[in-house]
């Protein structure tokens, strides 16, 4: 069977600049049948006092997942498409090692179930060629899922999948969209010369 979007080669891209903070992804994630009522996506407000910037954070699905490496019970598995799954319930001992180790802050210890749960890229859907719930509802396509050919045809920017956290190099299946190729400075601060430095021209009017 040929899938509309093959999860092994699909592009899952997150473009932070496009996020409008509407939380449609959070609501859609919570509607998934495999974890109904519990959303696995994080939607972070960076600094509301200074900006309306929000950041949707799905599991980045690392090639060598730190969460799985630190799991003492071998409860976190990666499948042949490179998708890192939620912990296996019979194995998970609710130790939260993965929660502390993940460089992206993804896993959640759901104390009610005594189990770590996380975004599994909607594997029930993506394994059948469908988009993950979040990407299927995102109105500004900050969360985008499709084929590489479609990305190149319809989107601008460069896909970035390599990360450096201190001495740790991480390569992820999920990409973020950057303006240009090369290293990305993820510090979100004032950009010199950009209107966002002074949106209401207060400095010039003083």
């Amino acid at each position, binding site marked *: 069977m040929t899938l509309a979007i093959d999860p092994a080669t699909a592009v899952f891209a997150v473009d932070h*600049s*496009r*996020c*409008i*903070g*509407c*939380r449609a992804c*959070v*609501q859609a994630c*919570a509607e998934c049948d495999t974890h109904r009522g*519990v*959303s696995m996506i*994080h*939607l*972070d*407000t960076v600094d*509301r*006092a*200074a*900006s*309306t*910037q*929000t950041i949707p954070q799905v599991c980045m699905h690392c090639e060598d997942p730190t969460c799985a490496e630190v799991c003492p019970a071998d409860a976190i598995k990666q499948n042949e498409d490179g998708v890192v799954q939620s912990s296996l319930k019979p194995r998970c001992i609710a130790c939260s090692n993965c929660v502390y180790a993940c460089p992206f*802050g993804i896993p*959640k210890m759901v104390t009610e179930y005594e189990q770590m749960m996380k975004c599994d890229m909607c594997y029930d859907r993506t394994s059948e060629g469908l988009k993950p719930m979040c990407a299927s509802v995102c109105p500004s396509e900050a969360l985008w899922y499709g084929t590489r050919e479609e990305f190149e045809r319809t989107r601008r920017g460069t896909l970035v999948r390599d990360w450096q956290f201190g001495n740790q190099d991480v390569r992820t299946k999920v990409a973020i969209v950057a303006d240009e190729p090369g290293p990305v400075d993820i510090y979100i601060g004032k950009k010199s010369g950009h*209107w*966002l430095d002074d*949106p*209401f*021209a*207060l400095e*010039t*009017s003083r």
Partner: protein
Amino acid sequence: MDPRVTPAARTADVFLGLRPGTDLAVLSAIFRVLVERDWLDHDFIAAHSNGFDEAAAAVSGATLAWAERVSGVPAARIEQAAELWGTSATGMLLHARGIEHHTKGVDNVLACINLGLATGKYGKPGCGVNTITGQGNGQGGREHGHKCDQLPGNRDITNPEHREHVASVWGCDESEIPGKGLTAQEIMDAIGAGEIKGLLSICFNPLVSLPDANFTRAALDSLEFYAAIDFFMSETAHHADVVLAGSLHEEDEGTVTTLEGRVVKINAAVTPPGNARRDWEIICDLADRLGRHQYFPYSSTEEMFEELRRASAGGSADYAGITWQRVVDEQGVFWPCPEEGHPGTPRLFEGGRFFHPDGKARFIPTPWRESAEVPDDEYPVYLTTGRVISQYLSGTQTRRIGALVDQYPEPLCEMHPRLASDLGIADGDVVRVESRRGEMTLPAKVVETIRPDTVFIPYHWPGDKAANILTHRDIDPISGIPEFKISAVRVSKADGRGDVRDDRDLTLHGDDR
């Protein structure tokens, strides 16, 4: 263009952070730059429009320096916006309530249309000037008589030919069709003046959604008879003598028309619970009791749509060729669609053909004027009202949904740190906001994303949390829309600390269920 850096504005190349109510000054200055720099589509203007010279003359005084003084936006930024618009081969100008909820809202929109016409950005791919509607059927309603100066098919209730056509479809005498009625705010004003004594409303919550809520409350109490059709017991329905339980759109079927003029099907997902009924069945029963059954003989929504096809035929929003089956089979059909073999019209104004009798568009001059109430010594701060993403309209539906309430449980007063510092207010302090109509207290949310001369309060809540306690009832003379976007207020620190929980902040700490 916005007094606040909204999430969409954050992504802009050029941001015009203007003083509330000065959109027209900025738009006029942009038009003037287009003329001065000759960033005009002369062929389009000559072949497909009238009135360019008059409209251009009306902005001859709108220099960049003047616009900067009026709007507070640096002249260089206005010029940059003009250059982007004037030199781009394609471009869309999108607006919503932000420029419409003004006493000069119609002029603001006309000024946008002038910019589109001057550069020929109509009837081509990637071009257009659009008002994004606030509701799923905002477009469809305004085409067929939601507003009581209209008749189906974009027709005018004062036009004798239009009246004759619709009377022939309805099978009544032309004289039985009433004359031009009042707009929503005019209705409330007439109730307050004792000129209207009875009211039947459908899904109408003016205690939250109309300005000057204290006036609205007194007006509702003065009605001799009030019947409300609504799906939930809204704050306004509490003032009714009779409440008829209506339906949500999930409980009914029919069509809506999108902003792009596409007629799409809505299917019922569930049936109304208990004694609740579909709104149109209630209306038909009322007509029956009033002895007018012959004009309301419908037993299905499809029958009503069939009548709408005939009533709209020949009008500019022509649905004649749009059958119920086509709407389903073709994933919606675009009007005008005058006959069944017609493919519909996905893009309006192609080839520069407009709906005026001569086929040409019209420039309308839009001279500058001030808003109805601007800050003074007594009330020195602009108040602008608007929405938050988790609430919808007057909140009758969304204030009942826990996950949405959690995101933004109560109104907050957004203000810039500079204003907050001048007033001795810290983030989370309870502040008193007073206008000539009334006052409210609510927590302050101190953010750099709003102008220092302006505060913002979202309007979705009732009672003492209603931002519309503060707003005034002046309306646009043409559209009848109130000036929700500008009132003059004074702000001071009140006692106590509020809960400024904006749940989006909490997600950083892992509590984002």
